[in-house]
């Protein structure tokens, strides 16, 4: 055995491991340490930065003007009517008044807001066919659209799925009272409110010489009043799957309370700088039932800033964490200074032993 080994050793000149830094675990390395100067300075710098950002955020959120009207309460009659699904074909109109004390300048957006509507439910989120929405001819029966995929006679729904089926279908108009008696329609833009990528990549109409033929052989979802190719009869580029309202609705929200952009103020004439102060009325065609699942509907007018809307949360969170960080910085400094005297005491004692 021994002989064999030594022979082997002779054949292979050396079994000695390489003397490389990697193999000998001697790679040059940066060994960061949590030293007092770096830690303390980072605390103060980060704390002050957070405070600053927080204050900016609060100021910016404060500048946002917002009007919110809960019309599922205001239009109680319509709400009642919609609770009974057999009344689906009865029209119900409703209006809500509000007064602006001062001008609202800047970009003004009109939102609808839903409460307690679980767009983020797993089965709801899944219930769509992106291939269908891309205009591809697909067998939607294999998708997650069920039970909103085909009618019992086999006609496929276009678009399929629970999301599409439950699309928000109230129509909201805003009128402005120039004086106490005359009201004019506030011009609102219905397209250009969605992401470019959604409108141009994610949603495509099936190709055909016209839209209605493209959707031939399909039927509208059960809760819809009109087929998909009639969503916007005025604007060809806002019809079918690429209808802005539809696109926005299909981007499901993260939480059960959410707001979606409905319209955007068209800056023309007296509305060039925003909404002037005065009296306004929302004219709402109430179609979308919410009370049945204890939901609420609001209509919202709001400006936006770089930091988003009127939400103060981020600003406050920044301010608080900035303050706490700075405070922690002071506390740690105090502890550190107090302790350092202790350490030297120990060190002095050591050699004397």
């Amino acid at each position, binding site marked *: 055995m021994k002989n064999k080994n030594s022979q082997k050793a002779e054949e292979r000149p050396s079994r000695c491991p390489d003397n490389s830094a990697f193999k000998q675990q001697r790679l040059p390395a*940066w060994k960061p340490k949590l030293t007092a100067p770096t830690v303390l300075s980072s605390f103060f710098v980060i704390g002050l930065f957070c405070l600053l950002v927080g204050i900016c955020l609060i100021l910016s959120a404060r500048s946002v003007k917002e009007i919110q009207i809960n019309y599922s309460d205001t239009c109680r009659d319509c709400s009642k009517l919609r609770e009974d699904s057999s009344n689906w074909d009865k029209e119900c109109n409703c209006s809500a008044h509000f007064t602006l004390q001062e001008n609202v300048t800047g970009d003004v957006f009109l939102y609808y807001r839903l409460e307690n*509507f679980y767009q983020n439910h797993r089965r709801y989120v899944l219930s769509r066919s992106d291939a269908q929405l891309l205009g591809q001819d697909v067998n939607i029966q294999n998708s997650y659209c069920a039970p909103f995929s085909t009618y019992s006679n086999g006609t496929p729904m276009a678009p399929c799925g629970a999301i599409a089926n439950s699309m928000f279908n109230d129509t909201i108009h805003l009128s402005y009272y120039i004086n106490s008696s005359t009201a004019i329609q506030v011009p609102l833009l219905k397209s250009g409110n969605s992401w470019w990528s959604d409108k141009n990549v994610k949603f495509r109409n099936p190709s055909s010489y016209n839209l209605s033929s493209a959707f031939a052989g399909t039927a509208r979802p059960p809760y819809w009043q009109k087929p998909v190719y009639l969503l916007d009869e005025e604007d060809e580029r806002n019809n079918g799957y690429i209808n802005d309202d539809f696109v926005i609705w299909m981007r499901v929200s993260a939480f059960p309370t959410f707001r979606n*952009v409905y319209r955007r103020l068209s800056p023309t004439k007296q509305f060039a700088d925003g909404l002037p102060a005065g009296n306004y009325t929302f004219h709402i065609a109430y179609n979308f039932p919410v009370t049945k*699942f*204890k939901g609420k509907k609001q209509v919202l007018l709001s400006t936006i800033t770089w930091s988003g809307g009127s939400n103060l949360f981020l600003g406050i969170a920044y301010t608080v964490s900035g303050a706490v960080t700075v405070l922690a910085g002071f506390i740690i400094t105090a502890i550190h200074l107090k302790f350092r005297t202790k350490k030297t005491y120990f060190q002095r004692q050591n050699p004397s032993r």
Partner: protein
Amino acid sequence: MELCAKKHPPEEERRVRANAREYNEKFQYASNCIKTSKYNVLTFLPVNLFEQFQEVANTYFLFLLILQLIPQISSLSWFTTIVPLVLVLTITAVKDATDDYFRHKSDNQVNNRQSQVLINGSLQQEQWMNVRVGDIIKLENNQFVAADLLLLSSSEPHGLCYIETAELDGETNMKVRQASPVTSVLGDISRLAQFDGEVICEPPNNKLDKFSGTLYWKENKYPLSNQNMLLRGCMLRNTECCFGLVIFAGPDTKLMQNSGRTKFKRTSIDRLMNTLVLWIFGFLVCMGVILAIGNGIWEYEVGACFQIYLPWDAAVDSAFFSGFLSFWSYIIILNTVVPISLYVSVEVIRLGHSYFINWDKKMYCAQRQTPAEARTTTLNEELGQVEYIFSDKTGTLTQNIMVFSKCSIHGRSYGDVLDVLGHKAELGERTEPVDFSFNPLADPRFRFWDASLLEAVKLGDPHVHEFFRLLSLCHTVMSEEKSEGELYYKAQSPDEGALVTAARNFSFVFRSRTPKTITVHELGQAVTYQLLAILDFNNVRKRMSVIVRSPEGRIRLYCKGADTILLERLHPAHHELLNVTTDHLNEYAAEGLRTLVLAYKDLEDGYYEDWAEQLLRASTALEGREDRLAHLYEEVERDMMLLGATAIEDKLQQGVPETIAILTLANIKIWVLTGDKQETAVNIGYSCKMLTDDMTEVFIVTGHTVLEVREELRKAREKMMDSSRSMGNGFSCQEKLSSSGLSSVLEAIAGEYALVINGHSLAHALEADMELEFLETACACKAVICCRVTPLQKAQVVELVKKYKKAVTLAIGDGANDVSMIKTAHIGVGISGQEGIQAVLASDYSFSQFKFLQRLLLVHGRWSYLRMCKFLCYFFYKNFAFTMVHFWFGFFCGFSAQTVYDQYFITLYNIVYTSLPVLAMGVFDQDVTEQRSMEYPKLYEPGQLNLLFNKREFFICIAQGIYTSVLLFFLPYGVFADTALGADYQSFAVTVATSLVIVVSVQIGLDTGFWTAINHFFIWGSLAVYFAILFAMHSNGLFQMFPNQFRFVGNAQNTLAQPTVWLTITLTTVVCIMPVVAFRFLKLDLKPELSDTVRYTQLVRKKQRAQHRYLRRVGRAGSRRSGYAFSHQEGFGELIMSGKNMRLSSLALSSFATRSGSSWIETLRKKKGGDSNANSPSGGADKPLKV
């Protein structure tokens, strides 16, 4: 191969008939094929998979996979689980397969060894595996014994044969076996072929030194004992050839019966991890239940009303059932708290650490050209937690080379090298060994450094001459001389060989012996002494003497023996000399040398005649022969004249004392388990500084009965209790040292005790009712030495400590006798590069020098442990942070098991985004440099105390993970809920995922203490890869190809373009990380200075000072302990005197040296006339046998 695996019912007795294969086949005895491998080609896949799925974790993931295939439940795609699972199973299977391949190879190698089997009257070459019980096989010199054999006959006279049992029991001295007289005459093959005796004996067992059986042959019964047996694993030495009957084969052999079963070793972290995984699973079920109840309530309260928009699934008919399904869905989503990548990563890290061990240049032995090898890749971090080391002695601590190192002759000590000023000098490179070239018979390998001794010889100092004359006469060494001047000594113990060799080089050359004479070349002149008597060695006498008549006719008794015994028997006249010699002896003993005292006595002719007559009468007496002989010996070995003392160095392996000192400082307890004699073992204990003269007491347990042993243990404990009480400290053995408290360390120092226990006593001490007592006593001692232990006892001791101490044990050894211990201990280390590879094959780590152990433990082990702990902490943290977000989200999405993240993110998070930085940390991290680790052995303690990763640390990590998950979810929630911007689900998912990746990356940056280029690359790379993949997954191209799979199209660009999202991410990072920084800084600032660092440096310095003290003290007087440590065996004197062991040929050879009348040869010839064997050609052929 398949035959090997056959199972047999336990046998009650074994019947073996020689040369009768058909007869023996009836009993279906195991064949001689051994099998240590686990799989073959066909069974590999099923068996291996079965084994792997016995792992809790693997079954769990399989179960998850099945769940995911149910569409109603599946909240995640199946590929999120199957990809990692298959990866894990494959990696493990490949590893198992390679391991088993090597086992097959070594099995084959052993099974295919050749042996000569007597079949149908002729010798045939057969492979070992084809040897059957009942076969007669022929063994030649230096061959391994293939199976347990009954020695039938040998080439040597009287059916003697010599074996070396080092592989079997670790004893290095040669042993004699003798064939039963009836069979020893069966010299030639034809007679052996007709032999049809039947052996009835005990069934296979593991007792190495017991055998009882009966040989039935020709209607006669002959008793058989262990003296007739050659066991597998032994090697035939100094014997031309011999024949044996196979009694036990393969797995039934005592060697195999003694090697414990191969067990799959797990580290304590593995076990802890499995426990934690179970806990996490429990936690998972709790979360699942909470969310399921939530789901039930939600579906009942809200979901039922919401059915117009979102009807229930067809199969779901009630909120309760929906809740039930949602439970399983949540189990699937939340399973990432224990990601399967944990197991892969752990294996990868361990593999990396193993490579570092293999690559370590500082553990490479240049002499033997053997690098260290991590043979098991799964135990590395356990190396950082070792508390007990069980070491073999021979070949591990010592090199098994005996060197004549010093001597004291007539009150003068020789052997120290003195420098110019007359001070003792260390052996440097410049010192030249003494030149023995003047002596043609000198052994060229012998080295001695003190030239004054040779001068004394040359000057003709009578004391020195007498000293070496004694050494050349008083021994039982056999000599062999092939050609003039080429002398080989066959010593049954290496010590004796060393002494005779020393005498040889100093011109007192033992040349040859006959039963009645000894021929010595004294200063170039052949002198033949008449050998009158050998007063043989035994354990009680601890000495041996010869009585010789010089050519001048003077009768002199030469005696050498243990100082304790001999010093009492000296003539009182030499008081002064005795004192000086005693001083020298103490000095030698303190250096750990094995000492012998030499003395002589002149005998009057008349006195001797009387005595010899009495001896003759006594030796033929029927009753009380032993006692009478002993009495006679006592009588003559009295009033002797002191000649001097010898000191033999049992050469330690390099750096053994230093290693032991450092390991002791690291709070590792070292136990020596050796098959060797007590004196030898104790001596080595002293020379490697395990035992020191500073020790309060060394308890020696040698009781032969249960009661004696119990009593001795009790006394030892009482003594320790008493002394610690008197020191004012409570005595604590069982409790672990509380976290490095100063007082407990002092307490341990206060009483330094050692325990030496003998094989028989150990057998009693290991019985169920005494084992705890033994353990308590032993653990209270600083050092424990168990001598004369069998391989199985070694394993039992290890098992005992494992069982009660819950400590990590490491066994280190080099021989086959250590295999069971190596297999039993948590970690087995084999010393490689020497003869015999069984230990290495059974070991988990192997290297060629004991001293590498300190590097393996203190550097590699410590780092491995540290890295593994840091890795685990971070890993659990990152997965809790990752997964718990789903839990919080559950409360906002109707408990519908909606995931927060994209499913690709979930799949890739553990495999891609966060795996490499933590792996890099787990492989490369270093807290202190290797030099510091060696300098401050106390740094090893956290591992032993399990401080870096335990249940508490785990909960801290979990808490941190949960804290992070809360912030990760609720900060974006606060920002996103009910705002105009990006409030959609996909943007939220991207924001949370990005925050998560950034937070855990910053956290790993904080955890990484050693940023090599690789760490930089992995950490920055992971972030870059995250964004790259994010943008790729959200790109138009992929969406257009698979619109239903990549739904997040355009999300990355849109979401990450918003300043609010970035502000949210920044805030989340700051809020998650700053508390950790603050906490770590405060801990670093407050804790270590108070407890660890200061104490470390203080204690280490203190201990080092103490250590220096006793190292310096070495020169001073030691205790009066006997260094007599021959691995002698009784009975050799008798053999020599009877001439039994002298082959005619060698006798003839020696005659030319004797020259003078060889009448004794004639008498011997006459005496052996009837014995035809002795003259048979095979017996006569002579080859030089090197010892």
